[in-house]
């Protein structure tokens, strides 16, 4: 099974990118989808209805969504593996843009909107720098020159990152993403998966730099996939 982790600010078109990935792989890879959001999310229901694939959502509630995503990821991998899925897509509504939800053994995609201002790549630098690919959406709304200037800003943050420019609704330019994803290896050892980078300093076990995924490895406020509420686990 391949693992794909998709991050990016609100309303940039992450789900439009997901939809294109599912469209490409749903004949061959039996994709499964998990959406992590804060208060409300509808994408799981929409995608289940549209493609007939297994989907789930996790409301992070008082937790930061990336934090919740890290907590449930190990469970989510088991869930998708038990369903015989060949491709697990995790979409995180990462909010402060300081975190990088990408892990080892996963293909990390940062989604950016071409209409979000020239400096936006600089503002979300960690999220781009640790991704495998930056997908720039809504490029049909700006001029070619402006698209090329936006690209320069992304390169300033991550000089060698793979950049895909797209109108994600139509899927223009997505062939490069599909090619890279198709060639990406399956995850080999789920128990060995760790975060690629350290989240910002803070007080919980994830915030202080523990990179293991799955609630079993953490203390404080934790969250298994099957539990709707957060649980406190003391050290």
């Amino acid at each position, binding site marked *: 099974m391949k693992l794909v982790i998709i991050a990016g600010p609100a309303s940039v078109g992450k789900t439009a990118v997901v939809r294109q990935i599912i469209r490409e792989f749903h004949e061959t890879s039996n994709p499964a989808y998990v959406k992590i959001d804060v208060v409300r999310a509808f994408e799981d229901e929409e995608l289940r209805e549209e493609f007939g694939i297994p989907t789930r959502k996790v409301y992070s509630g008082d937790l930061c969504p990336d934090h919740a995503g890290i907590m449930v990821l190990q469970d989510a991998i088991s869930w998708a593996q038990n369903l015989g899925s060949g491709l697990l897509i995790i979409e995180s509504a990462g909010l402060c843009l300081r975190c990088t939800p990408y892990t080892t053994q996963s293909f990390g995609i940062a989604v950016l909107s071409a209409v979000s201002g020239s400096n936006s790549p600089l503002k979300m630098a960690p999220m781009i720098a640790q991704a495998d690919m930056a997908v720039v959406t809504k490029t049909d*709304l700006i*001029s070619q020159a402006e698209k090329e200037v936006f690209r320069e800003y992304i390169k300033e943050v991550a000089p060698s990152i793979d950049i895909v420019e797209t109108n994600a609704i139509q899927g223009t330019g997505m062939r490069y993403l599909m090619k890279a994803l198709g060639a990406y290896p399956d995850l080999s050892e789920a128990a060995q998966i760790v975060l690629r980078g350290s989240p910002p300093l803070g007080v919980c076990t994830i915030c202080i730099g523990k990179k293991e995924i799955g609630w079993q490895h953490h203390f404080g406020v934790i969250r298994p996939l099957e539990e709707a509420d957060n649980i406190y686990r003391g050290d």
Partner: protein
Amino acid sequence: MRRDQMSEITILAGTNRSGKREGFNQIIIRPGDTLSIVGPTGSGKSAFINDIEVLAQADTVTGRRILVNGVPPSDEMARDPSKKPIALITQNTRVIADLDVSRFLKLHVEARKQTHIEHLIENTITLANEFTGEEVTGAMSMTALSGGQTRALLIADAILVGRTPILLLDEVENAGIFKERVISCIKECQKTVVFVTHDPYLALRTDRRIVMSNGAVVKVLEPRERERTAIARVSEIDDLLWDLRERIRSGDLIGEEDATDKEIGVNA
């Protein structure tokens, strides 16, 4: 292969909105060719040049495929701006980049891996000012430019910074620019150019006209000499309209004698 050695673009037919195959097998655009794309709004004109710009490989709504020199383009050519032989000026003249003109051009010069940065920025602004009557300066904010200024700057940028052999221009006549100067500049630079246009004069001035309907190409016309008389006449009418437009914009009253049949040459 270098960008400037590129010889031809081939467009392979896709389908219209009902999924029916387009009315051609392939359209070949050779260096120095001029084409216009005509048809009602929503007929697929912009989608046609967008397919060329993204070097589509059946991955857009139209299903068209684009070949460069008879073969599918390399990923590098399609994705690295400094290797891309095409510049597209869209209809949209709204810029989102929160940068001043000089900084915008500098970044674009870097993206296109050109040298002599300062000199090139200066020349681009000078050329932009040949295309528009409203002065553009390096210190202006991109987001504050008018439609005409943006269009003039982006065309100058495509010619000098992009320095691509192929230019795709989507309804250049809509913004207040000197289109005659743009056309002559493109000819001097020996560019291949594709105009999406509703302007009769621009459409008549090109070698070939591609007619669109319902998302597909329905005709490819090559008028050659047959439209020569019409071109001369339309040119006079266009000059008159240009003059009238300028006078109206500057607040003149237009008298009877300004628009007689004799002057516009309709009965000539």
